[in-house]
């Protein structure tokens, strides 16, 4: 897989968080999910965000993915401030700059693999004819070219997650966010999916994985550990693989 981004962008920061806070109101009660997080992610990084449940890792991931907005603090994605953006701008950012991979795959059961993979193209305004070709292209990339007309219920768990990864890749995102991508898979399939993510990383895609499994985090070059809404450690395990 070849690098798709121009070299000039590699020296810049892809994402930059400054004193990110996220507070949920539950009636009169205020729950702090993130209590001031600073984080920088460079192009081409392979990052694991770890922590127990309730540590704030999913909240951080949602904010990184522009699904949620911080209560306080700044978040810059590709140099643009996200926190003040209109809803439509956020949608566009999610569609073009970010690719999501979920624990539960979130494929639409009525659509076959091609249409599932092509879903983001509908909202990116890509003409119908082009969509299919591009979907087949990414399905081939994840090794599912021969399953393109199968519906999710005709696919195994690993295959479903591959379709989901193909969907995340179809708009050539800057940032691939995977939330417990192997949480619903057995260990053998998990390993296959992780190999695919490794490969994408080697191809130049910035990959961020949220996980609580040591096994998974081992694949990543950088490891961020969270507890109670704060970053407690941020280690580069394999400096060589940084962009």
């Amino acid at each position, binding site marked *: 897989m070849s690098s798709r981004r121009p070299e000039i962008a590699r020296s810049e920061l892809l994402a930059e968080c400054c004193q990110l806070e996220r507070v949920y109101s539950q009636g009169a009660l205020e729950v702090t999910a993130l209590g001031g997080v600073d984080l920088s992610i460079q192009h081409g990084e392979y990052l694991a965000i770890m922590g127990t449940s309730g540590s704030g890792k999913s909240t951080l991931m*949602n904010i990184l*993915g522009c*699904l*949620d907005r911080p209560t306080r603090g700044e978040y810059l994605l590709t140099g643009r401030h996200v926190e003040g953006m209109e*809803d*439509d701008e956020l*949608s*566009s950012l*999610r*569609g*073009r700059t970010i690719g*999501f991979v*979920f624990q539960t795959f*979130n494929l*639409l059961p*009525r659509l076959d693999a091609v249409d599932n993979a092509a*879903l*983001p193209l*509908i*909202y*990116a305004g890509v003409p*119908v004819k082009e969509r299919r070709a591009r979907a087949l292209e990414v399905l081939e990339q994840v090794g599912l070219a021969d399953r393109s007309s199968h519906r999710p219920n005709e696919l195994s768990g690993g295959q479903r997650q591959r379709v989901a990864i193909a*969907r995340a890749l179809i*708009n050539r995102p800057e940032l691939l966010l995977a939330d417990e991508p192997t949480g619903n898979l057995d260990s053998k399939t998990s390993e296959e999916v992780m190999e695919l993510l490794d490969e994408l990383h080697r191809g130049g895609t910035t990959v961020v994985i949220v996980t609580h499994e040591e096994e998974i985090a081992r694949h990543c070059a950088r490891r961020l550990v969270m507890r109670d809404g704060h970053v407690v450690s941020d280690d580069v395990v394999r400096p060589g693989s940084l962009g």
Partner: protein
Amino acid sequence: MSLREALIAALSSLADHTLRAILTTLGVIFGVAAVISMLSIGAGAEQEALELIRQLGVRNVIVQTKELGDRELAEARRRSPGLTMRDRQAILDAVPGVELVAPRAKVRTWRVASGRRTVDANVFGLSDEQAQLVEMSLSEGRFLDRLDVESHAQVGVLGSEIADELFGDAGALGELLKINDVWIEVVGVLAGAGEGEGAAVQGVSFESPTRSILVPVSTALRKFDQRPSDSPLSELVVRLGEGEGVPSSQAAARLLQSLLDQLHSGADDFELVVPDALLEQSRQTQRLFNLVMGFIAGISLVVGGIGIMNIMLATVLERTREIGLRRAVGARKRDIVIQFLTESFAISALGALLGVVLGVVLSRLISAAADWPTIITAFAVLTSVGVALTVGVIAGLYPALRAADLDPVDALRYE
């Protein structure tokens, strides 16, 4: 997402739940079917009424003998003999703008026969003016003329069925028949284009011309026995001319009323039928009917709309994760609104389509079962379909907005 695409997606989503879609749309189906079939009955009835009123003639005013009970009749006869040829002359003399007055007398018959063959026939005394009033098409011979009337001639024009029954293929012209004990020579036979059965509108009845025998009115009055209490004439048709100085039919009716009141010494033994007024009355009845039907059908459509809203709310709930996912891969709120609006639109369009089909079928069935004429108008179809589609979009609006307003994070996490 283009609208065309959204529509295709909505239809495929409906196809996945065909039964549910049809159940949901039942309200709309019945609403649309009700509007179409009800309006078709209304339109049919209206057309029939208009047709009959036109047969009466909108420039005519009809003076009829009133049906009275024995005591009222005795009371009336003390002051007035009923409708007479004298009334006819008075109307011609006194009411301005009258073109002609055609009298009509009903002859009581006990036997109508030729040789051994007898028939049941309605025998009327008419004048030659009748031919100016209604077009009389004859299959053979001639209609009654003025000379017949002036000379009390014992001649008659037969309806086609009567001619057929009495004389068969031999031809009726010149033959003799006997009505009661009066010999009548056949001078003409009416063309058999009659409606078959009689008809009635707003109290005015039309006898079938095919079962009639028409004789000169003078003959009817002079040569046939009448009961003393019977009004000599059963009706006078007053035809108004056209142009300046001619009163409207309603004004003419008022003049006729006061003239005849005077002639009949105030006896209440006649009534006026003004086709022009009947026409207006019939239209008003029709408007009221349409209003009531429209209201009932409207309620049905509103209920249908509530059904659609209900199912759309359920659909939104059912597809919360899908909504979250679509938002995550770049769908704007607007895209979600369009998706669900298109779906509710498609449901109502399906309902409208089935409703039109059902409406047409119902209207045909009613036509066949009750023997009412029905007319399906473009107005009924367009209005009901238009309202159904509007209801569909309105009913889908709230669920669609709710779907779009879901928080993407919550939606993705929804179980």
